[in-house]
């Protein structure tokens, strides 16, 4: 027996928010954003945001670091969840890696959005 009115229900919760903010984020956007940021001089940062939960970010990062010969880290952002941060402009490489069937993640290219100039 449960009384409908007494249930705790947050009307301001995000729609489709089941367990945590991260899944809802993925459901909402579904996009993987690859961005670039300028640092000092001609240095840049590449961030990969919104990778599907089924992948282990650490392992991905390890492969990426080896493959693209760059350093990188996983940033745990409060809003965006886990974001892979890479040194240098790796947008092209990362995009190819994510789509690659053989040794990549076999993701759909449609879900990837590359930002920046």
């Amino acid at each position: 027996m449960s009384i409908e009115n007494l249930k705790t229900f947050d009307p301001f919760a995000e729609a489709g928010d089941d367990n945590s903010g991260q899944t809802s984020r993925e459901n909402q956007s579904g996009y993987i954003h690859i961005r670039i940021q300028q640092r000092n001089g001609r240095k840049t940062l590449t961030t990969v945001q919104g990778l599907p939960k089924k992948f282990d970010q650490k392992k991905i990062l390890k492969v990426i670091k080896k493959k693209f010969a760059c350093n990188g880290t996983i940033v745990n952002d409060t809003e965006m969840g886990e974001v892979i941060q890479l040194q240098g402009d790796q947008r092209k490489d990362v995009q190819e890696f994510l789509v690659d069937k053989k040794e990549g993640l076999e993701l759909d290219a449609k879900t990837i959005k590359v930002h920046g100039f």
Partner: protein
Amino acid sequence: MADEPQLKPRKSVAFAEGQTIVDGDGQITSTMQTNGEKDSAESHSKPEGDQSVDEVTAMFEGLAKKKKKKAKKEEGEGDEDGEDKIADDGEVDLSALKKKKKKKPKTTEDDFEAKLAEAGAGGDDAAAPASEEKEAAPSGVQDGDLVKGTGIWAHDDTKPINYESLLNRFFTLLHDSHPDLASSGGKSYKIPPPQCLREGNKKTIFANIAEICKRMKRTDEHVTQFLFAELGTSGSVDGSRRLVIKGRFQQKQIENVLRRYIVEYVTCKTCRSPDTELNKGENRLYFVTCNSCGSRRSVTAIKTGFSAQVGKRKRQRA
């Protein structure tokens, strides 16, 4: 300031991968080609969006050409432009006459005229294009001035007119009364190239943003927001409404982002017309309404997304 352009190429290689820099005269066309095909940012973004970007690039090819030309120098634009136009006109009309292949290459004017005359002698077709370009029609079999409505074009004439002549008339009239319809899609849509100046070492000034926004009929704020989100930086507007962007950016890079903005927020997806309006719909959603076909679509709000901490941590905390 004078030696800035020389500095740019070296510094920008990291951002514009595999592309030579625009400043040289000869290189301009080559970069233009790479623009559409293997731009570091575009070629590998998701195909759907990419295609549309490419489409726009193709659509605005005239624009791009003009952009570069203007950026380079104004001279020589006029006459070549005219020539282009003539060739284009010829293409429109003569494609209907199945002489497309012959006519399509942009010939010099004499050549073109010679071919025209040849075509006129061969068939009944020369009336329209010639009247359009030279106002002196070499007469064919089906004669008459289609603008004035004489000869076979007279209202009470019962002589059957063949299809090609009719088609000709259609295009001629269309071209006369609605030149923007007759010319191919995006050709009439031009935005001035973004002017980028460097302020100091770390800032870029986007000088003519107001003009560009006016041309696109978008607010400065919206465009600015998009630029900042895409470039992953921040900035401000200075006294004379110029945009100051943090970070080093080249004209080409800004242009790429603008192009993407146009695809996303300016062009109508249905009829590709850039004559659209962006306004806020009922519930905080933005809608693009096309002025030429009346279609309405919602566009995504601009999201900044994750931005990493750049620069000194101490300063950020303070």
